[in-house]
């Protein structure tokens, strides 16, 4: 699948997919990487070491700092794949140095799929 590089780098790992947008501030715990937003489809799951796949970000702009915090605390996803990366997530992944690709048909990815993300070339493929 060919998309657009938002933040460079390469990563391989298991996908964790949310059909719903993710608001990082108040949505994911920066210390543990656990999704804490009430009634979110991923509530209680952990994003550490995964390829985190979701349509787009939402909520407070402080979410960018939470993404940075996840990386700093060693609990960040290995890469992020979006349908459309908006400024909160774009800002967070670039500042944190997390590979990120958008303009990807995320409906073709299921939780548990093994993915190879080559953000430098804007590519996301099943392993």
């Amino acid at each position, binding site marked *: 699948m060919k998309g657009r590089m938002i933040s460079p780098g390469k990563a391989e790992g298991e996908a964790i997919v949310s059909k719903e947008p993710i608001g990082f501030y108040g949505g994911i715990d920066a210390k543990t990487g656990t999704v804490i937003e009430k009634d979110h489809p991923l509530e209680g799951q952990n994003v550490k070491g995964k390829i985190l796949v979701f349509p787009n970000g939402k909520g407070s702009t*402080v979410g960018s700092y939470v993404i*940075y915090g996840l990386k*700093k605390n060693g609990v960040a996803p290995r890469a992020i794949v979006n349908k459309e990366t908006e400024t909160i997530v*774009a*800002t967070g992944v670039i500042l944190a140095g997390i590979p990120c690709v958008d303009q990807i048909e995320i409906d073709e990815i299921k939780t548990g799929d093994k993915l190879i993300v080559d953000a430098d070339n804007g590519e996301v493929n099943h392993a």
Partner: protein
Amino acid sequence: MELTKQEEGILNGDQGEVLERQMRLLVRLGEIYNADKMIPVGSVQVAGVSYKSVGDPGLEFLEDIASNGGKVRVLTYLNPAGMDMKDWKEIGFPQDFAEKQIRIMNAFGAMGINTTATCTPYLAGNLPRFREHIAWAESSAVSFANSVIGARTNREGGPSALAAALLGVTPNYGLHLNENRKATLRINVNTELKTSSDFGALGYWAGKQAKNGIPFFKGIPNANTDELKFLGAAMAASGAVALYYVDELTPEADAQEVGGLETFDFGDKEKKETYDTLNTGQKPDIAILGCPHASIREIAQVTSLVEGKRLGKPLWICTSRTMKQLADNLGYTKKIEKAGGKIVADTCMVVSPIERMGYKKTGVNSGKAANYLPSFCKQEVIFKDVEKLVEECLV
């Protein structure tokens, strides 16, 4: 996006990892919004300053940039902090909160930022000129700079404003381009606007109609900069208005073509309904003025209302450190304190933890504060003019 040789070099890491990521951020945002190039900015105002807003992740991010030697290249001010940086203990801000807030300010200071923390930088020494490109972040300051001064700024996020400060440039898109600055709706004002809260009520109502559009107001015969500040602040809070025009009063209003625009009417009925909507409580525990930060004219007005009288409830006037010092020099601070009031600098009620300080019902004269206090600070709101609020607080 077309980059200069120097910008390319920074993007390739010539000037270290901090600036590489900052440049990557601006380039990516520029590409998302179809910018053709970077443009130099005359000044920056950074948001995301209160510990209440940015929390530990923001604090750590800022300390990392500071410890890696990040330095700003242009005049840079800050949005309000979460507390008065001098009198926090006496006013009752919590100790744990204060320690984190001080670390945030120290990190900004180490970057060479002028740590004057205010939503009215234009009153505190950071005054752009007409058509100057700037990168400001706080929504009411953005509205004032674009609309009342005629400068050019998008509404920046905290990190993108900081990146503009560290690099001295911003991507050329949005409100930096003349073609994106045309009025998109017209609002006819058919009621008299007598007080700052009337301007706030109009702003709250207009923001709901305009959403992220550019309103053109007709029927406001006169307004001073304080009143325009209240109008713009409320519109930027209830909607996402970053630029407006007032017929005859603001720059480039006479160049707008408003003939075919969708038109809305704000009359006595709309004004009353807006006051009713914003008033969610009665009998305030505390009255807080200065959202956006009070000018010296507003502080003088409050001084004349309370001088020689006794307040039975706390009355705060939030303002910049610069205006506070002017009020000290002019003797206003002493008179207000003698009556039992307080001039609080560096912070405001929206970004300070007033809900942790025992207050449940807050009186305000600001449409913006009335918009945010119920959600951000879990307050019931009493929305009134300054004179009536002060009266409620007097013994």
